[in-house]
């Protein structure tokens, strides 16, 4: 298997996704299947080809000004909690130190 259990759990941790213990085996198996499949890219010989970036050849620059954005409803209507211009989270412990 190309990808180890601890690597999957580490990636889930970096992605800020809780994985219930009963789902771990399935996620590891699926990840291994996908990683094994995409590993075929390693067999493609490198060639002198530019990186492909779709879209306009140059990013257009906007006028250097701050314009009001007309919103149908304010941020407090969309966020779970919002007070005095701040997104609010429950009073919990400190940010995890990982």
């Amino acid at each position, binding site marked *: 298997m190309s*990808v180890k259990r601890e*690597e*999957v759990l*580490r*990636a*889930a941790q*970096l*992605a*800020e*996704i*809780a*994985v*219930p213990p009963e*789902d771990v085996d*399935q*996620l590891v198996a*699926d*990840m291994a*299947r*996908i*990683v094994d*499949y*995409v590993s*075929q*890219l*390693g067999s*493609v010989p490198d*060639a002198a*080809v*530019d*990186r*492909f*970036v*779709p*879209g*306009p050849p140059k*990013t*257009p620059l*906007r006028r250097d000004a701050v314009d009001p*954005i*007309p*919103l*149908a*409803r*304010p*941020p407090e*209507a*969309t*966020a*779970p*909690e919002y007070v005095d211009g701040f*997104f609010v*989270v*429950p009073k*919990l*412990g*400190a*940010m*995890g130190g*990982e």
Partner: protein
Amino acid sequence: MSAIRDLAAAVADGTRPARSVAAETARALERTGGLNATLDWSAELLEAQAGAVDESATKGSLAGVPVALKDNIVTTDQPVTCGSRLLEGYRSPYNATVVERLRAAGALTAIKTNLDEFAMGSSTEHSAFGRVLHPTDPDRVPGGSSGGSAALVAAGVVPAALGSETGGSVRQPASFCGVVGIKPSYGRVSRFGLVAFGSSLDCISALGATVEDAARVLHVISGADPRDATTLAAGPVELLPPRQDLRGVTIGLPRECFPPDLDPGVRAGCDRAIAALRELGAEVREVSLTHTGYGVATYYVIAPAEASANLARYDGVRYGQRRLDGAVDVRGLYRATRGAGFGAEVKRRIVIGTYVLSSGYYDAYYAKAQRVRGLIAEDYRRLFQDDGVDYLFTPTTPTVAFRAGERTADPVAMYLADIFTVGACLAGLPAVSLPIGRSNGLPVGGQLVGPVMREAELLAVAGALEAIVPGADEVR
């Protein structure tokens, strides 16, 4: 052939009030509710939009035409869920550019269609709100991720709908459901108001009952937008009549897209379409897209990598149904919210995307996939610019619509449904899928791919093929 042209003309000359179209559409939506193709629709909003059209002195090119919206395109007056529990109840504070353009042209848009969660899937089985049924065979899938849009058009509820493509999510369901799906060049349609999945790939795309119907919608929604810096500096896609013949046109058949194990019904449909292209006077010859076999692998590194960044915002702080589940710090809140809110496929893709971007794996996967993407784009460039090929013809999908549940246990088997569609997405090219026959009653789709910015000419060729290939006939 255009129901849209006739309907808009009747609304414009007053012989058909838009209000009656709205009422009829609402009845059709009720009648077809069992397909589970919609996540939200409103008879009141349809009626209000129709009333505004009826009372307006000027009638746009889509006056009174119902155009359904995939539920990852935001509007202020209806919820947008992206097929996810995590966004349940969310309402956007602004309208997508495409919605503003459709409404300015008189379209009735208050129909939001079901999709794979955050547009990640090829069967619409990954919607948190249940799968969409195939309109011909309820045991089968309509394709995805724009399965709700394709099913509504195929069921005749609306003449056109918007979907979005990242790897084939409009052409593949169009093929499965027997309708037309057009993916424009990357940047031809504004992404402002499309919930982001893979930002270097995402394209809002059009579905229609016919090439002309889909083209009429694409004409309205396309063109540069100052609110999306990745739009191309060009006006709308021009509407051209179908070509009368294809003399002087060279069409390439990439041999990699016609493998020995291609579904026999799909092959029979393609054989008949290829004969029709020759009959129209086109020079048809075999060509090679050398890196086609690597397209799905390339896509399943780049798209999840971009998704892992784009979906980081759904954390229970800025968006999303907040979950605590015993969390004791902010990080725990993020993880609980995302762990409970996202479905299995979305979690898989975010974790894969994070994995291929993480130190130790970035060069082997992400950087390598970017180089292979360059090779894939170069394959197309060489054919169109050096080898005298004007367009490519391929099957849209390797099989007809598969049975529900058939591929959910193996993510790679599901991903391979996109093997012939991901190339145009990776290379940013326009492509159209159109019905080319039926196999045991199930639609078969054929695909034409063209050079960047050549949508109008590509659709004129597709219109010629459509005119002589009966899409509803059995080919096998």
